[in-house]
């Protein structure tokens, strides 16, 4: 029982990592006032770029760089449309999501001829699990040994990076001058402008950070979690991350718990498939899959707590009226 719980939590960490990265990306852009429904597309392109670059060069680190580069480019397009030309942030997000689905498959077919997939990556071309020092030695210690060796040890470097980025983001957003200005741009951009700070440049920087983070999330999907790219492999994770962002009320640590909760639901959904539970009987796996969406809707509607986003989110900033 305890062991299976640890295994579920272990799986939770693995499925949560890309959610955490993408949700933090969303946090930066939404805190600056840009609705980011393009997380999904940026992640998908990142996944493709990472797998393609890695399979061509053999270096997973170059793959990661390519993923970041591509996701940042998409972010800049997003910014060009929604900041520079004051286009609708949601429409541009939709465009980026469509572009990602279409371009990854089109280019993938052209370059690799595998129906949109990239060639399978061998182990040396992936981010492999890292065994933390002493994990094998303490594996036999009851309870704590299992927690250390199974749950904490044995993840790839990107999982640890995702977890480390949560406090880092908290520090940047809440303890630095940039963070203060970033939040101000999302709440009251006119005040930021009055202080002589460029709202556009702030928002661009937020989108670039979001691009970097979604790029890492994408690389995680294709070079750490799986071994290669398959069409549409982000499969709605960008939207789950968006849900987790709302669920965590746009704050890094609660967002982390939102991601872990949704990751946990994902992990037990796989386990509960076809299993008979006491009292309730068999739960359809779809019922667990929709929980993140249902919970987010309930939260947004104020039925369980209240999620209020940054005030100026979604509005293009117009300097003078």
């Amino acid at each position: 029982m305890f062991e299976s719980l640890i295994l579920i939590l272990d799986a939770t960490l693995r499925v949560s990592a890309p959610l955490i990265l993408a949700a933090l990306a969303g946090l930066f852009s939404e805190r600056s006032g840009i609705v980011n429904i393009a997380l999904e597309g940026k992640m998908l392109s990142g996944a493709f770029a990472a797998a393609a670059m890695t399979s061509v060069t053999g270096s997973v680190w170059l793959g990661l760089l390519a993923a970041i580069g591509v996701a940042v480019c998409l972010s800049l397009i997003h910014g060009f449309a929604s900041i520079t030309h004051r286009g609708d942030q949601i429409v541009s997000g939709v465009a980026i999501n469509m572009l990602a689905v279409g371009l990854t498959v089109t280019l993938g077919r052209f370059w690799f001829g595998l129906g949109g997939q990239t060639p399978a990556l061998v182990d040396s071309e992936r981010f492999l699990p890292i065994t933390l020092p002493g994990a094998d030695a303490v594996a036999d210690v009851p309870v704590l040994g299992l927690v250390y060796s199974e749950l904490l040890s044995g993840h790839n470097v990107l999982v640890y990076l995702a977890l480390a980025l949560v406090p880092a983001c908290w520090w940047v957003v809440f303890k630095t001058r940039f963070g203060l200005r970033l939040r101000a741009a999302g709440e009251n951009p006119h005040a930021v402008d009055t202080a002589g700070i460029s709202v556009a440049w702030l928002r661009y920087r937020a989108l670039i950070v979001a691009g970097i983070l979604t790029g890492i999330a994408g690389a995680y999907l294709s070079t750490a979690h799986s071994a290669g790219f398959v069409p549409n492999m982000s499969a709605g994770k960008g939207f789950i991350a968006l849900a987790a962002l709302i669920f965590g009320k746009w704050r890094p640590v609660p967002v982390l718990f939102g991601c872990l909760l949704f990751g946990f639901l994902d992990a037990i959904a796989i386990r509960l498939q076809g299993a008979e539970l006491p009292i309730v009987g068999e739960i359809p796996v779809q019922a667990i899959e929709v929980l993140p969406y249902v919970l987010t809707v309930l939260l947004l509607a104020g039925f369980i707590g209240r999620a209020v986003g940054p005030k100026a989110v979604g509005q293009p900033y117009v300097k003078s009226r």
Partner: protein
Amino acid sequence: MNDSKIPAWVNVIVLPLINIFFAFAFAAIIFVAVDVNPIEAAQVMVAGALGYQEGIGYTMYYATNFIFTGLAVAVAFSAGLFNIGGEGQAYMGGLGVGLACLALDHTLPFWAILPITMVASMAFGALWALIPAYLQAYRGSHIVITTIMFNFIASALMVYLMVNVLKLDGQMAPVSRLFEESAIMPAFHEIVAWFGLSFSQSPMNLSFFIALGCCVLVWLLLWRTRWGFAIRAMGASPSAAEYGGINSKKLTIVVMLISGALSGMLGLNEVQGFSYQLKLDFVAGYGFTGIAVCLIGRNHPIGIILASLLFGVLYQGGAELSFDFPNIDREMIQVVQALVVLFSGALSLMLVKPTERFFVYLDQKKKAAAKVEAGA
């Protein structure tokens, strides 16, 4: 202040065409990047979509879907609401159509079933839009996020229903039984046969005309009724509309119900007119394409019909494309669609300023010329 400097015809016709031109130009670059001659590809697409009767039928069948989802987005847009949930609403609408057909096809003739399936498609689609609408109007949650969430909920619900409830015993694929003849929407080639004409067999069916009827109704609603005025007023300025005595909460609900109902009617074309059974994923992105259609069509039913035909050509032509060019498949159309959304939607303001400057320049030139003439 901006529009006054640009003649209306430029705003309505020239600017949208320039935006589409930009989108196609970028698409052409991508075609070249994957070693396909864009001009050849365009010829293949047009020939495949409009060159023979079956192709035309397919184009019209796709266009039918786009008219429904495009109108749905347009009605919501007119009120300043972004209904991104067409995908889920259409899915539910199709479910309504399918359930009605499965329940009634043994007992009723087609002309009795059709009104019931129409109502079912609208009711199911509208219901799926009702909850996000209510939450937006009365609980202050953002409609874009809730409708996205409802797309995912709809898709999970359909998987559950198809796998656990509607699947036939002893079948692997999650599909319902085929409908009886009495529930099936008459195809276009059958309709013209009644008038003694002939047309190749194609999936184009009666719902195309239902879609055209919806265009007329939406036009009447938006530009010839009190409600339409209220909807457009709310879209133009919510605070002014509120000040003018329009109940924006109630109107939000009404608009979203209409929008959801229009999306839901996609089920008539897909379920009753094409697949003749319930299955998974029949919406296949048509709901999102509705956004592109609405953006090009500039929220106007006539524009939406034209944009739907354009996307019909792209979809049908795109399917033909993969026969001639091994490098590409239908996903390429997704790229074209994305570029259209980007240029016609997100970047639609980009060209306003340069165009404006161009017309100011023309104006000054004319005035200068007039002065010279007056002086001489």
